[in-house]
């Protein structure tokens, strides 16, 4: 890669911000590495190919995998990318960079606390564990340090959002009549959605789970906390996806040699996500008893509306790429596909990620259908689905985007472009294998979230054999792991390539610019208000019903495992004993 430009690069113009971005990405990638290792262990263990852990430790592994990848990796990448996007598109620094450092530190400390609680689960001698999976459903209970870490992490993300809003407001003062630059628009809308969504998990953790794990309250209502979790749990998938969309909308057309097809369409898509991503969470609870069918039906209808922004995205992004291909000399109804820069790992990675995302759209439609969902609920189909979405559309886009972004953050070239290309292609191939096999196995009834998926009945395979599917999962998982290692080592070697000039990149303006869209699209307050109303409409009744049925705290729910309560009991007993001795 020796393309030269005369633009100054991002790090030339904003060295301090670039450092924050770099650090966030590095935390993300460390987590990616640990998470991928856990993924490999799971893939090999479940399929009985190689068992290096005891099955009793499987949930510790799975929790680390889910939390490190789906929460820490994705969100750290997001904050890094968004810091870059806001700084770049507003062309200004944060109001106070110390505040920026503060949220980055908070998020790191929170992750370390939660991560330590999870990993200590491997050491039996230490009475700390958090084998609660990334959904942390009660009555599974984690050590308080896990919930506290989670809370600190989330507050960190709130501060990050506040930082970006502040930067935007400062910019607004200097530019009262300009449209919000697209990338900043995407960041702000994502964060509005995030503030609404995280209310659910904040209440869940701070009011219920944390006090419960500290022994301050005796029991919690599993249904209520689950519902609060999914209040947050669906929008979080858009929190993963929106940075990937930001890259697809604004960076990918540039790499493809084209321009974004429509800036107004992109804005509409992000607004639809703000409005619709929270009032659908109940679609994760189709089989939960205690929630009336009617509420589930409403969630399903809202979910179907949510397909719209993703379809708009498919159209806009592919049209922007086709524009690039035609500018590069591509012709024909499909012939233009061969004119795309397939040797550019950033392009190919994002394109393959988009392709698998399209496949994930199908399994998503099946998940979303209230009745068909019963066919696949809690089977391996579900991980099959979300390894296409978050595990590829998001993760692979992030890795591919890094190949483009990293040189601009460091003034250093990526160590090897061919290895990078092989890496993204390998991820695609490995995921095609693993995810396909997971989907099929799910249809045969193989459950997810278990070290011993045999249970006591046989799974009749419609074609091939279960053994074959196991092998595909194991081989696919291994390819994915090797791909991750290639990515991380390529990046590590890139820390040592010589520094040079010429990595500046511009992003060309959209074919149809923001001036073609109504100004009301930029009215953040309006969209936030409508989003809140929709959430209240969707959740007031179900939550009310749950609370009036079971009270706020449920009854007689014993936590598992007992971590802190026994300590308190022991302390209590000792004190009582002491008191007796003294008296």
């Amino acid at each position, binding site marked *: 890669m020796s393309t030269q430009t005369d633009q100054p690069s991002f790090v030339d113009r904003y060295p301090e911000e670039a450092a924050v971005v770099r650090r966030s990405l590095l935390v993300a990638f460390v987590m990616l590495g640990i998470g991928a290792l856990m993924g490999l262990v799971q893939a090999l263990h479940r399929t009985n190919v190689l068992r290096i852990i005891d099955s009793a430790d499987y949930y510790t592994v799975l929790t680390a995998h889910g939390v490190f990848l789906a929460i820490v990796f994705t969100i750290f990448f997001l904050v890094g990318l968004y810091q870059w996007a806001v700084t770049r598109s507003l062309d200004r620094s944060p109001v106070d960079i110390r505040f920026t450092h503060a949220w980055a530190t908070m998020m790191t400390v929170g992750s370390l606390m939660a991560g330590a609680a999870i990993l200590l689960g491997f050491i039996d001698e230490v009475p700390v564990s958090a084998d609660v999976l990334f959904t942390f459903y009660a009555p599974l209970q984690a050590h308080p340090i896990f919930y506290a870490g989670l809370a600190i992490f989330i507050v960190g993300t709130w501060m990050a959002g506040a930082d970006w809003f502040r930067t935007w407001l400062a910019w607004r003062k200097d530019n009262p009549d300009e449209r919000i630059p697209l990338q900043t628009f995407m960041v702000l809308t994502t964060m509005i959605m995030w503030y609404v969504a995280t209310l659910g998990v904040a209440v869940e953790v701070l009011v219920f789970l944390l006090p419960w794990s500290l022994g301050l309250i005796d029991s919690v209502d599993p249904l209520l906390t689950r519902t609060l979790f999914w209040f947050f749990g669906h929008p979080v998938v858009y929190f993963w996806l929106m940075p990937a969309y930001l890259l697809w909308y604004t960076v990918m057309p540039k790499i493809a040699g084209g321009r974004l097809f429509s800036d107004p369409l992109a804005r509409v898509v992000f607004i639809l996500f703000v409005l619709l991503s929270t009032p659908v969470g109940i679609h994760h609870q189709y089989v939960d008893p205690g929630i009336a069918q009617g509420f589930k039906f409403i969630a399903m209808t809202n979910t179907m509306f949510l397909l719209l922004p993703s379809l708009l995205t498919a159209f806009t992004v592919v049209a922007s790429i086709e524009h690039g291909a035609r500018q590069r000399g591509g012709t024909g109804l499909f012939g233009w596909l061969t004119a795309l820069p*397939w*040797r550019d790992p950033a392009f190919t990675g994002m394109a393959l990620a988009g392709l698998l995302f399209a496949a994930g759209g199908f399994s998503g439609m099946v998940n979303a259908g209230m009745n068909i969902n019963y066919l696949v609920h809690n089977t391996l189909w579900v991980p099959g689905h979300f390894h296409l979405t978050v595990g590829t559309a998001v993760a692979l886009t992030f890795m591919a985007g890094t190949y483009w972004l990293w040189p601009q953050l460091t003034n250093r070239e990526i160590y090897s472009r061919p290895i990078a*290309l092989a890496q993204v*292609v390998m991820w695609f*191939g490995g995921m*095609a294998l693993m995810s396909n096999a997971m989907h*099929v196995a799910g249809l045969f009834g193989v459950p997810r979230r278990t070290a011993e998926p045999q249970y006591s009945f046989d799974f009749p395979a419609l*074609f*091939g054999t279960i053994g074959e599917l196991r092998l595909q999962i194991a081989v696919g998982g291994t390819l994915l792991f090797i791909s991750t290692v290639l990515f991380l080592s390529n990046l590590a070697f890139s820390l040592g390539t010589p520094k040079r000039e010429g990595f500046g990149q511009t992003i060309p303006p959209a074919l149809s610019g923001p001036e073609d869209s109504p100004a009301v699209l930029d009215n953040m307050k309006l969209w936030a208000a409508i989003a809140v109303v929709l959430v209240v409409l969707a959740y007031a009744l179900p939550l009310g019903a749950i609370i009036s049925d079971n009270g706020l705290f449920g009854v007689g729910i014993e936590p598992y495992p007992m971590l802190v309560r026994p300590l308190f009991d022991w302390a209590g007993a000792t004190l009582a004993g002491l008191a007796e001795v003294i008296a």
Partner: protein
Amino acid sequence: MTLPSFVRTRGGMLVGLVMLGAIGFELRTVAGMLFGIDLPAAPYFIGMVAILSIVGVYLDVTRSTSPDTAT
């Protein structure tokens, strides 16, 4: 040369072949799930890899750019 003009670089070829491989792999699933045709795994995959290799070699020797400028 008609077909070879599709392929100019080894990188592009790699991407294309892996995509074809993935499609071939999925086709077996489609045959099994949709049409109930149980294609035996080992011969199917070995055959698929063989065909893809032959296509790959053919495309590589007929590539339209010289091999040293493009990898």
